[in-house]
């Protein structure tokens, strides 16, 4: 009951805040994974709280057998100048272990853009660099493919300890060229490079592409995100990803990398607060053997011969199968709000263009409408009574004439 009351009070507070002030817009707003090249504007600070949830189940490797995984993340961005901002973010609640939530990670970094960020530009370029420290020592993994805090988690491949991540950002903001076309395309490409070294620790290539409608009160977007090993030209072998120390070998094809298509939307309130919802849906597909008992047995069969299933994998030295058994879907809810805000020129221009092109629906004031109709009715009645009076006089005169007066 206590939690319901707190949540209810929170919702009331948020709504009252949302209805209180004028329009504000985050210059650095991207989509879910796609990062915008724009920085937030000098002196501005924006905070974000994000909740993520999905269902996944691997009983043997998830102590306590959880099926529903909730996560909590916080983030903030502060503008140092008009072309640079500082980022701090953390996954506060991550994968539970022994039914207790663990602290996930902390990240800090900076985003830079070219100096014309003050203007509403068609093409934007930027660079984002982050240091990420993954601290959780345990997590449920795909068929136990992990060593401590490194391996395949339901959301993708993670490496315990320090990582350096960078993204080169390019975006196209069509409203700056065509005021009637509030579309935006974001493209990010980068890498995540772990500091630790081991045969099973690998860098990942990151790619995100998003298309979004960025409106006055709401946004809609769809994006594709990929975290790939170096396996575009052929499968990547991963050796020794087993806590028991057994040097098992599996391979990951390009189409088995964690890749998601995300559908999402964002509602923007006048005080700048935004409420976003995103649904990442897994689009990875299995190639070759899958992590089922039958496929494992087929791969481990010492009598395997040419023509048998997975014989080619056996020849390549694969001892264990792999398939993209990542979370098939996730739900992401995000609340973002300004802590310190000064309107940037670019976003003021965006608001102006959106307002200029807005087709405002006409509203009816019923009371006013009734008054108008009643006035019309009265004038009609007056008109009618005048006509009646004149007709009555005509009738009287006709009677007088008929009587020969």
């Amino acid at each position, binding site marked *: *009951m*206590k939690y*319901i*009351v707190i949540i*209810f009070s929170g*919702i*009331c507070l948020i*709504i009252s805040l949302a209805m209180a002030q004028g329009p504000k817009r985050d210059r650095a707003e991207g989509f879910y994974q796609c990062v915008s090249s724009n920085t937030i504007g000098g002196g501005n600070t924006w905070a974000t709280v994000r909740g993520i949830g*999905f*269902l*996944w*189940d*691997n*009983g*043997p490797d998830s102590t306590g057998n959880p*099926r*529903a995984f909730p996560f909590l993340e916080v983030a903030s961005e502060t503008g140092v100048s008009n072309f640079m901002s500082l980022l701090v973010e953390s996954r506060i609640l991550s994968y539970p272990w022994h039914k207790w939530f663990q602290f996930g990670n902390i990240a800090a970094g900076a985003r830079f853009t070219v100096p014309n960020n003050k203007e509403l530009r068609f093409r934007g370029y930027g660079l984002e660099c982050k240091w990420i420290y993954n601290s959780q020592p345990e997590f449920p993994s795909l*068929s136990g493919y992990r060593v401590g805090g490194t391996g395949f988690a339901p959301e993708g491949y993670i490496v315990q300890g320090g990582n350096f991540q960078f993204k080169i950002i390019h975006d196209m903001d069509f409203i700056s060229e065509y005021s009637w076309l509030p579309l935006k395309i974001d493209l990010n490409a980068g890498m995540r490079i772990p500091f630790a070294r081991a045969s099973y620790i690998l860098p990942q290539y990151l790619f995100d592409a998003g298309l979004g409608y960025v*409106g006055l*009160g*709401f946004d*809609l977007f769809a994006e594709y995100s990929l975290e790939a090993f170096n396996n575009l030209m052929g499968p990547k072998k991963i050796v020794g990803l087993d806590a028991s120390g057994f040097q098992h070998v599996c391979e990951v094809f390009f189409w088995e990398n964690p890749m998601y298509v995300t*559908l999402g*939307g964002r*509602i923007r309130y006048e005080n700048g607060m935004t409420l976003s*919802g995103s*649904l990442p*849906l*897994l689009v990875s597909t*299995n190639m070759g053997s*899958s*992590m*089922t*008992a039958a496929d494992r047995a087929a791969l481990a069969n010492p009598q395997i011969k040419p023509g048998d299933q997975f014989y080619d994998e056996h020849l390549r030295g694969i001892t264990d199968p792999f*398939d993209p*058994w990542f*979370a*098939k*879907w996730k*739900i992401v809810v995000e609340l973002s709000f300004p802590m310190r805000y000064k309107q940037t020129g670019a976003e003021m221009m965006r608001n102006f263009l959106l307002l200029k092109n807005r087709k405002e*629906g*006409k*509203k*009816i004031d*019923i009371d006013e*409408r009734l008054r*108008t*109709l*009643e006035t*019309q*009715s009265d004038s*009609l*009645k007056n008109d*009618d009574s005048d*006509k009646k009076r*004149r*007709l009555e006089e*005509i009738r009287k*005169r006709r009677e007088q*004439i008929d009587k020969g007066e």
Partner: protein
Amino acid sequence: MHALESTMPIAVIGVVLMFIMTSGQTVNRGRDEGTLSIPASNVMGNGNIDLFIASDERYSLSGFMFDPILGARIGISDMMQLTGQFIPVSKSFIGPVEAHLQITTPGNDNLRFFGMALSADLFLSSAPDTLSSTAESDKPEYNPYLFPSFLADLDWLALSKLLPFKMYLSIGMVDNVDLLPTYDQISLKTALEWKMFQHSAFASAGAGFYKEKSSRLGPGDASYKQSYFWIEPGGRYRLFGRFSIVGAVKLALFENTKENNPLQPELFKISIKVEAPLLFRETNTEAIRTLIFMERKKEKKSDSFEKRVATGKNLISDMSAALMGPQDSLDALDLDTKGTMKKRREETQKKMDEVEALFKQLDLEAQPKAPALLDTASSASRKSQ
């Protein structure tokens, strides 16, 4: 802390009561209100938010099932809305999560006779799929399903105030969410709703067609060979003019199942749903509907305005005209009608002028012959001169 916990519920009740009291006696009727199983083609007003809580008590050959449902709807623009709902407690730990993005045709902000909408329906299944090629009993998959659906409705009140009825049609590819991992489905639904000022009554009917999917257990069905037909009478009761309680009873009338691994459709279902608007702004559509309902109460008065309103159609024309641009209700009439009325008025005026001129001429001609007919005031004035 205990004192805080004990006062919190009172505070919540107080806030809710304040909401109710401040809401006044107006009816907060959502444009998107349909029956329990078929949503209207209209979407909510931009920025409006509804919360709802529902429960489904279902009976099939596999036994009784109870599903509590929590959800919310939000109007994203004047022609789009997003609905999300989930079952927090279920036999399989948590129930399916659903999201529906509905886009309707223009004219949504008016009392339109025919409306239609397309909806993208996303179902995030919480039923473990252990039959797909890469799944096993200890390696289940929780799959998402994305389908389109089509909605259409006829709002007869837009034609005549004497017909406060709405008819619905829905065509989709999901009849039972729980069976999505095992069956391809087609769902046809139709309904008739009698809308009153606050409440409404409806009757729905539909059919579900099922085709078993191929899996590791078998090749599946070649066609939609299993089906069932149902009816669902129900109603909407509005509390304090603000909260809606929607209830319905679904009954399977006829089923056609195969002998081997037969479909187990819902034979009986009782559904209750409570809808509460969190953020509500009246839409033009429902303002017009309210106005028509209110005007019906004044039918007994018989001045010309009331007579004109009583036809209902004129009022709708006026309101439509106000929405579409012209502020004068006369502009809402078609050009022929306006032309005819104007011509008739001019002719009448002309004839009356002619008759009055003739009378004046008669008076002038009669003056020298009958001075006695001159009024006393004229003669008095002459005398004074």
